[in-house]
């Protein structure tokens, strides 16, 4: 696989790097973990397999060998050899096919999974690119023009193609990321540092995602919130989805590349099941926060994972059937 032209920020990610946060090594991983896992599930692959995460404008990719791919997440109107192809479907591509993304239709991040998977080494238990440490993924950095990334060759697919350029296989994922603007949170340990007014404002007002929104975090614009204490915190752990109150009353939501520890009040946390919704928001989009309970948050996460697991098993079965029939 070769990058013909690089995009603004395309990296190899998986579901994140566990077990190194005590060294200050942040977990990274896909911003929209649901879509990245969905793209793997549709191909019947392990959910934590490596994928490419694209931002728009995205890279153009030449598949030098045949493969089966799946694109999930944001809709950047993907084409193969200039022919539009759908999201959420497995697509068999012939060798020398070119994948392009033509327009940012909706969302912010798009994921590509490959059946004959990207052939890279793990760094500290994960394939994810850690941009701070310049480690993991492909050479620890975003993909650049002329990069050649090897793929494994476990599955031959030429019998499915039968000389065609591409074949869209009939099955697809039903549940995909929703585009709602109401995102659920649970309260953080410093929630009660907010004044009563501020607590109410937090769930009543709309907040806008500013231009300072990247893989590290989203700064929000909107109603300023005030604390009823001058107390200072010593640094301690923060998490993907933690909402911190900055000294001037503004909010920041920590995203996948967040630092491991911080000292600002943690007033709330976006629930894990809704982080994918947030990961598909862009600067100028508006969101509103809705309170939920920890139990409800965990239930939603478990249900999401159940769906992905079931889909993965079903798709694996269908794909194996197809690969055998084509022999």
């Amino acid at each position, binding site marked *: 696989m070769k990058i013909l032209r690089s995009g603004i920020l395309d990296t190899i990610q998986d579901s994140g790097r566990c077990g190194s946060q005590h060294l*200050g090594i*942040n977990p990274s991983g896909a911003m929209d973990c649901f879509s990245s896992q969905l793209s793997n599930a549709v191909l019947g692959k392990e959910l934590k397999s490596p994928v490419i995460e694209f931002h728009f404008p995205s890279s153009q990719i030449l598949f030098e060998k045949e493969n089966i791919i799946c694109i999930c997440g944001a809709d950047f109107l993907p084409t193969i050899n200039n022919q539009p192809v759908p999201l959420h479907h497995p697509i068999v591509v012939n060798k020398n096919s070119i994948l392009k993304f033509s327009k940012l239709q909706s969302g912010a991040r798009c994921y590509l999974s490959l059946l004959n998977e990207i052939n890279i080494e793990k760094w500290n238990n994960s394939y994810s690119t850690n941009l701070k440490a310049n*480690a993991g993924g492909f050479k620890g950095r975003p993909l650049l023009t002329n990069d050649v990334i090897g793929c494994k060759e476990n599955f031959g697919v030429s019998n499915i193609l039968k000389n065609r350029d591409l074949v869209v296989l009939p099955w697809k994922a039903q549940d995909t990321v929703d585009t709602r603007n109401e995102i659920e949170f*649970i309260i953080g340990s410093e929630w009660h540092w907010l004044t009563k007014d501020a607590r109410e404002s937090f769930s009543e007002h709309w907040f806008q995602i500013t231009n300072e929104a990247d893989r590290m975090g989203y700064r929000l614009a909107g109603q300023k919130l005030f604390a009823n204490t001058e107390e200072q915190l*010593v640094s301690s752990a923060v998490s993907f989805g933690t909402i911190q109150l900055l000294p001037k009353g503004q909010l920041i939501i920590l995203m996948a590349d967040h630092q491991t520890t911080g000292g600002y009040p943690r007033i709330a946390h976006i629930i894990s099941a809704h982080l994918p919704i947030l990961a598909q928001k862009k600067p100028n989009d508006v969101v509103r926060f809705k309170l939920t309970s920890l139990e409800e948050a965990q239930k939603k*996460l478990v249900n999401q994972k159940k769906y992905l697991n079931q889909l993965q098993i079903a798709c694996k079965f269908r794909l194996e059937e197809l690969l055998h029939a084509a022999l």
Partner: protein
Amino acid sequence: MSIYHPYTMFPLGDSALTIDFGNSIDDQTNQKVLQLYHQIKDAHIPYLTDLVPAYSSLTVYYDVISVYSTEHSAFEAISELIENITEEKPKPVDGTKRLIDIPVCYEIKYALDIYEIARQKNLSVEEIIAIHTSKTYRVYMLGFIPGFSYMGLVDEQIEVPRKTEPRPNVEAGSVGIAGRQTGIYPLNSPGGWQIIGKTPLRLFNKDLAQPVLFEPGDEVKFYSITEDEFEDFKKRNS
């Protein structure tokens, strides 16, 4: 009553739990944090995905899917687990701490803020160096960016707040002060600490099995080197 009491536990989002020993920077509290950290780590519990010790808290990240059941929430299950561990008699800790000597060049070329601190504190640059190298510091925690060490406590005479405007890029190896904390930037990074010198040592190397030089609980002593010695170190280590 276990040695760990009193402490509080609260959820850090829906996939982590923080055990908090009080909002403070002191050796005794941090010792408790690290003791519990090792105790939980040594239990090798597969569904705990990350353990992050900080100044006065320990955060445990867990895999909700593995712990979730309809009878109890995953948070309840994990907090019960932690409570049980804190009731166990902790293993005697190995009293031998690592002492790591860190060479620092305090020349103005690298010590971007040292003159300003000297002026503010009414000290000479030599006095600041003498004070900074006189103590053995404890690595309380690592965080912020890969390998960044939070150490302390520096002598009150050289205690200075963070810069009001953080620098967009602080060079790897830069040694800084923030309040009574001192630390070293392991990578080029934006940063707001007051920079008083630079070490030629590499604190982060992704190609090593242990990519980070320090571990929480280490003791660190700085010693002053000249610019020539700094260059020598660099050459020998490259």
